[in-house]
């Protein structure tokens, strides 16, 4: 579209230059989708669970300010220090100020897509502070100086040989060795040292329970726990939409989250944090960063129900064949395509168009977000705001004129002329994107309308 940087179609074209890699990426994520199907099909009440989760979140979004205040009050009663951040800059400043005030220069961080959204790592580095990601996948992309390409599987775009090369350079593993066990052990030793020596740990938050003021963090590696328990200061960052009303609702979400994400019945660690241990501190940062604006967009507010399972990415035939980086945003895939235009409509104006509107994303979503419907609606909003190329608008106006007039349509249609004129795939040359890898249909001698006029009398 009108981005200074490359748009989704251009980045996807680059990704598709290596077809073998595209096939591998597609098959890997399809395998995760199949694991999700298997896990879901083991629960006869699956659709009822999705429906319940969606309704709980509906209630949360309709009463968000009340639940947030209830949560804050209960968290403070528990001895947690609560901070509010209106945007990414405010969030990052709170983190850096906390570290600076405590004379800390190095922090360990478990997975938090919110900090990716806020570009916290970059901000810390610019302030001379070190941050090490402790989720294995995140550590790998951090070493590669890349953003995560998937919210649950951050380095799913990397083959084990590439990880072996990275670890050889950064962690001193033997050159050319891509044995997963050896690489995991090297990461484990490296991270263990990090856990033991860091006085501050930042984690994300999966669920914040208004009723009790506790919050829950789900990981498979236990890295959030290792960081938080060994550090003096635990900083937890959460978006305002992470609230659930009562602890009993966790049962619904914990059952859905990992079955949807990876096909596991539950995450290996579902850790509840309620109050700091003696001598330790818990700081909780509650971040808006555009969420209240999205809440005010009637057509798009349900996107805030998202629990970040990544199922929509795994099922998306476009995501699987374009890779997470083609979405050039912290959150890729279908859900990213409906969340990010809210943050910067011009920059992300291409994303709602990076879909065939097949609807598979909405069907796997554990909280029943109408993702593909929202993609359609974002397209309308983006066009109305003028973030589409003028040439497309002109073509669409001409097409609309032709299709609104039977005589213009018939006149043009007789020799398929209207298609040749207004549809770009009608000319068989290299500039025609359809023709590059596909043949045009053979035009028939007569249209159906012409056939009907000859063969059926009124």
């Amino acid at each position: 579209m009108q981005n200074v940087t490359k748009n989704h179609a251009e980045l996807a074209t680059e990704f598709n230059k290596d077809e073998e890699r595209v096939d591998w990426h597609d098959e890997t994520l399809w395998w995760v989708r199949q694991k999700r199907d298997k896990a879901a099909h083991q629960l006869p009440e699956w659709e009822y669970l999705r429906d319940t989760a969606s309704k709980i979140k509906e209630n949360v979004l309709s009463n968000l300010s009340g639940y947030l205040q209830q949560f804050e009050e209960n968290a403070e009663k528990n001895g947690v220090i609560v901070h509010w951040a209106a945007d990414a800059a405010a969030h990052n400043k709170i983190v850096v100020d906390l570290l600076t005030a405590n004379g800390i220069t190095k922090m360990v961080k478990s997975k938090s897509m919110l900090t990716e959204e806020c570009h916290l790592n970059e901000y810390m580095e610019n302030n001379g502070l070190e941050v090490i990601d402790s989720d294995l996948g995140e550590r790998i992309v951090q070493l590669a100086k890349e953003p995560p390409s998937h919210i649950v599987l951050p380095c799913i775009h990397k083959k084990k040989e590439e990880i072996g090369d990275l670890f050889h350079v950064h962690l001193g593993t033997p050159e050319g060795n891509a044995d997963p066990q050896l690489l995991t052990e090297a990461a484990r030793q490296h991270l263990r040292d990090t856990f033991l020596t860091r006085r501050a740990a930042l984690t994300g938050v999966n669920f914040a329970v208004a009723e009790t003021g506790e919050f829950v963090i789900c990981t498979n590696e236990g890295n959030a726990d290792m960081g938080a328990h060994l550090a003096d200061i635990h900083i937890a960052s959460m978006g305002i939409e992470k609230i659930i009303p009562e602890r009993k609702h966790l049962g619904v979400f914990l059952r859905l989250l990992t079955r949807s994400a990876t096909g596991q019945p539950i995450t290996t660690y579902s850790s509840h944090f309620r109050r700091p241990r003696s001598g330790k501190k818990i700081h909780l940062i509650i971040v808006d960063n555009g969420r209240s604006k999205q809440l005010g967009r009637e057509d798009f507010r349900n996107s805030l129900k998202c629990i970040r399972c990544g199922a929509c990415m795994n099922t998306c035939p476009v995501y699987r064949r374009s890779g997470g980086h083609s979405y050039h945003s912290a959150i890729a895939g279908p859900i990213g395509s409906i969340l990010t235009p809210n943050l910067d409509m011009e920059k992300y104006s291409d994303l709602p168009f990076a879909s065939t509107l097949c609807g598979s994303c909405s069907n796997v979503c554990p909280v029943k977000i109408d993702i593909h419907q929202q993609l359609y609606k974002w397209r309308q909003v983006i066009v109305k705001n003028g973030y589409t190329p003028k040439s497309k608008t002109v073509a669409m106006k001409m097409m609309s004129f032709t299709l609104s007039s039977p005589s213009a349509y018939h006149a043009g249609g007789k020799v398929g002329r209207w298609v040749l004129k207004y549809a770009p795939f009608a000319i068989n040359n290299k500039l025609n994107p359809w023709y590059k890898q596909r043949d045009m249909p053979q035009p028939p001698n007569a249209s159906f309308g012409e056939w009907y006029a000859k063969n059926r009398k009124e």
Partner: protein
Amino acid sequence: MNIGLFIPCYVDQFYPGAAIATLQLLEKLGVNVKYPKNQTCCGQPMANSGYEHLNGDCNELFIKNFEQFDYVVAPSGSCVLHVKEHLHSSKHPQEASVISNKVYELSSFLTDVLKVESLPAKFPHKVGVHQSCHGQRGLHLSQMSELVADPFSKPGTLLNMVEGIEIVPLNRIDECCGFGGTFCVAEEAVSAKMGQDRVADHLIHGAEYITGVDMSCLMHMEGILHRRGSKVKVLHLAEILNAG
């Protein structure tokens, strides 16, 4: 029962065979079918590109062409879904809403309204069935692999009435072919790759024909089959149900 036959623009121009088969099939089943000659398009190409607001005249024309019928039937899940979800009119809101409720995709019209239980069709070939997304996930013509629910298929029920047909299994029973309207040119690389992968699934399972309820998906897969020099052909569901 008066049926208005709605033939999508690209079917009218490129695939008259699918439209003729639809007409003949409905006539065979004894219903009164008329094709309003002033019809053009449902407006989906504009709407899916973000220009739904340009569809005012197109919508009025659609209403004028089809308001007098008991049912409107089209050999396309995608166009029917568009009419159901997005046919609006400030001048004729009531008429628009009535049409949205009486428009049917062909296979669901046969199974749900005409309640067809047998067909005199014969098609002794191996056939791969492509589940077009808008028909399947939008109109619920068949069960979707993502949902935990009992399987069913309206096109499948009809194909099972055809003598001699052999439906081939697929590895991915309902993955998108990548056509997606203007997506097929705007996102050429991914679109073509999706189409190639979908076609490959049918080919490795020995399909001689690929069928479905939407000619647009089939046009996409046909373009890939032709480019490969494959002898495998695409046929609209109506052409198989009308065969023999």
